[in-house]
């Protein structure tokens, strides 16, 4: 089975688009259903920092990509569980459309199966050389002492 690259969920909500939009794109909304803490600005090009108290104070930075009022909200964030400094990001999109009874919300998170080979090579070599450089500095420091 291939790695699921994309996760999709569709919800039919009995609420008007404005209300759903507010829950998704205000700090108060985000902290009501998503994380326990949020600060920053929900605007394209800005970051929102979130924290999850119940998940061992896990933190994540949402790099906001799209805020298209009442219709699309999207951001990128790091891969859960990946070590700090891992440059891979998944793309999360919330798309809203009106229905007879309220709003249809489609959530898509994609990019799980990405394997940037340039990153694999660059990062592996970078780490190896980083360590060599740091150990070299340590040796120089010890030699000088």
């Amino acid at each position, binding site marked *: 089975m291939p790695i699921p690259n994309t996760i999709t969920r569709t919800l039919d909500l009995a609420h008007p688009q404005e209300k759903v939009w507010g829950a998704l794109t205000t700090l108060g909304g985000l902290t*009501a259903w998503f994380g326990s803490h949020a600060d920053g600005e929900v605007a394209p090009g800005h970051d929102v920092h979130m924290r999850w108290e119940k998940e061992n104070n896990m933190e994540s930075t949402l790099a906001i990509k799209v805020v298209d009022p009442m219709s699309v909200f999207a951001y990128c964030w790091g891969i*859960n569980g990946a070590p700090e400094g891992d440059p891979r990001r998944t793309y999360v999109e919330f798309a809203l459309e009106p229905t007879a009874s309220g709003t249809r919300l489609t959530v898509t998170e994609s990019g799980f199966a990405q394997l940037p080979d340039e990153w694999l090579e660059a990062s592996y070599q970078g780490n190896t050389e980083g360590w060599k450089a740091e150990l070299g500095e340590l040796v120089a420091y010890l030699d000088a002492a």
Partner: protein
Amino acid sequence: MRPDPEEVSASVFAALADTNRRAILASLAEHGASTATDLSGRLSITRQGIAKHLALLADAGLVTSDAGGGRRVLYRHRSEPIKVAQSYLAALAADWDGSLDRLAAFLADPPR
């Protein structure tokens, strides 16, 4: 050659499915570069057994070796394939159902 994420993940999970291979990787992560003899002594696995598992781990890209001078071959653990498998686990660990349940509950009954 571009590695295929599915193949990388499959070989990581196959490599990790064996108790002895997990023990070898854990020992390399804990103690750093080691010889087959070090590992054999530390884990109470025969040298032949260690050699067999190290070969499989090397095939999966989880272990690299370098001759550290003379016949002393040092094995070290390599984390890149694990990071690929991690994104597979992240897809399985993503809890959108839980989050969206909370969103629906919040919309139905927002605190005043």
